[in-house]
């Protein structure tokens, strides 16, 4: 489906008209309180989908209508600009102005590809990289888009596995790390998984489009799909998995640093069980000393001590999924409509809405 930018503008204008009527018009400058600090996709009560800008007070400052369900977004490293991606197997990504939420460009996945919901800018923001499925070949691939030319597709390369999902960049470098979830799907059969018996996920590191390192989980864990990533200042990768077997699981998250083995994060088996084999989002804390993971199915957040690689605390929140680290701790979203500031394991601020927040929330600027 090719999306018409004009329709999105109209949707936004209608929303802004409502906002203006209430005296809550978005401000024109980056620094103003009216501009968002966070972005998250959501479903509205009428079943339609939007991308929302959220400010520090947990107020929704803009909503942009999306053609179908969104997933994650990624912020431009220097400009007030972000890209929001369709949920797998969607084919659109929307580039927006983060100051007022104006849609700037829509990009569409080329024929025979769909987006997998995540993307990443290069260090200098010359390029945008998108995780994609070359579905007729059953091959994971990374799309390369020229940002300055207006997000023009210029290249693609193999992702190093099947079903690439999250993608991150190591700090101060152009080394990319990709979570190849290992699961083969084809849009003809929707989201049905086609290769569970033989799936084998990996983490693949790339520099200049070439594989420089690939790590996998132990063979007996081959049904643990590595999906979501977070990277700390030291370049360590934290990853969360989604399990495709009925086996007893000892850990659903791990740590990896280049050139080393994977280390799994430990928790008592009863607490691991409560995650129901499913991590929806993962993030390092701002100082990198903690790793927080969310399980919407289990309705629980686990916070791990990075150095000890052990569970430190947990908080139960129904259908919790989106999480982003900040100076105060974490901002968390839930499918039941909650936006929650969590600090030292305690709820500091909470806002309720009728929006059902989607899997990921991202920060578009420091707050």
């Amino acid at each position, binding site marked *: 489906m090719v999306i018409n930018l004009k329709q999105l503008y109209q949707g936004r204008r209608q929303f802004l008209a409502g906002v203006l009527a209430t005296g809550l018009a978005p401000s024109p400058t980056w620094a103003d309180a009216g501009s968002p600090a966070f972005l998250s996709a959501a479903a509205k009560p009428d079943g339609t989908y939007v991308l929302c800008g959220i400010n520090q007070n947990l107020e929704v400052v803009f909503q942009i209508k999306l053609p179908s369900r969104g997933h994650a977004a990624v912020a431009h490293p220097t400009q007030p600009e972000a890209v929001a991606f369709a*949920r797998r197997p969607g084919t659109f990504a929307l580039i927006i102005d983060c100051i007022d939420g104006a849609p700037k460009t829509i990009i569409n996945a080329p024929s025979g590809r769909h987006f997998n919901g995540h993307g990443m800018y290069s260090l200098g923001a010359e390029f945008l990289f998108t995780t994609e499925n070359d579905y007729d070949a059953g091959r994971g691939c990374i799309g390369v888009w020229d940002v300055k030319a207006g997000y023009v597709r210029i290249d693609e390369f193999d992702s190093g596995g099947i079903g690439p999902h999250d993608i991150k960049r190591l700090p101060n470098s152009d080394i990319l790390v990709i979570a190849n979830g290992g699961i*083969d799907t084809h849009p003809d059969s929707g*989201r049905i998984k086609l290769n*569970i*018996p033989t799936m084998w996920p990996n983490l693949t590191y790339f520099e200049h489009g070439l594989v420089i390192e690939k790590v996998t989980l132990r063979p007996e864990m081959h049904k643990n799909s590595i999906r979501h990533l977070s990277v700390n200042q030291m370049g360590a990768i934290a990853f969360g998995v989604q399990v495709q077997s009925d086996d007893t699981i000892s850990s659903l998250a791990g740590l990896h640093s280049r050139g080393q083995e994977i280390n799994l994060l430990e928790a008592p088996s009863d607490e691991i069980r409560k995650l129901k084999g499913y991590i929806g989002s993962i993030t390092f804390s701002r100082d990198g000393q903690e790793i927080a993971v969310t399980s919407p199915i289990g*309705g629980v957040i686990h916070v791990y001590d990075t150095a000890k690689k052990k569970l430190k605390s947990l908080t139960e929140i129904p259908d919790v999924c989106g999480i982003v680290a900040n100076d105060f701790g974490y901002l968390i979203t839930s*499918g039941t409509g909650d936006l929650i500031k969590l600090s030292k394991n305690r709820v500091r601020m909470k806002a309720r809405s009728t929006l059902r927040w989607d*899997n990921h929330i991202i920060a578009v600027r420091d707050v």
Partner: protein
Amino acid sequence: MKKLMLFFIYMIGSAISVVPTDQAIVEDVVEAHILPRFKALAVVSEKLVYAAEDDCSAKSLTLRNALRNAFDAWISVSHLRFGPTEKENRGFALAFWPDIRGSAPRNLARLITNQDTVVFSPIEFSKISVATRGFYAMEFLIYDQKLNKLGSSDYKCQLVQALAGDIFETSTKISDDWHNNYAKLLLEPSASSTYYSSNEALREVFKSIVGGLQFTSQARLGLPLGTFERPRPKKAESWRSNGSAHNVKLSLTSLHDLAMRLTLQYPGLKKRLGDSFDRSLILLENLKDPNFSGVSEPQSRLKIEVVQQSIDDISATIKNELGPKLGVFVGFNALDGD
């Protein structure tokens, strides 16, 4: 007065007894829905072994009927994808489908061309790729015209018998595991067991009805439908044996049975869901299109899409109405992972 008191106590007692608890629902589902179906699968799979021993030629009606019966038994449990079917890839070893990458025909052709001796050892055969085993592989071997012409019929006879034996072995393992082990796990939840509570066990059963409807809609109907511009009739399940619509019917019939057991205490919802299943089955019957070849013609395609939509409507009712009632509400993000 005493009589009146007793009457009230009786009334309260009977009011409680007619509202099934989570435990009672799970017990009914396990004993009347799950166990008999897996038992039947093992029984008809054994008959498939005898039929293959009797006459292993691809043209044999006895063999074709035995395969159909065993395959039917599989379709009727194909939504119950947890526990015993998921151990050692047993479910996939019986049914590797959708096979979008065409692994089964490729692997089967290779076995036949090389006259691979793996067919002579049940143990070795049980180690080959799941895509080369099970009902779909056997159906391919019997009905595919290219494979019919390939290689020696003696070897293909051995292959048919190896497939039948392997299907029986796997089906029996699943059935035994259900009867001797897994039923108990669902029925006796505890803090140290697989299921903490009977509500958690109920949630597992609920997931299987949601997943089963999704599979029938997205794979059994969605694959041949493809897109309007590019319909894919040859992607239909069992199209070679004219079994595509038949499989949808069996799947819906089994899911209907499960839905009725899950809605025992909600007569209104039970009636509506029952009507919805009936409607889907009638729409399917009216297609008179056993292998969904009609996906390529706009008019007949529309009718197949209507069947698919009617199944999606059942899914929506189950997720949005039955789920919350049973206390197994599946959240926005929890529903269908990513």
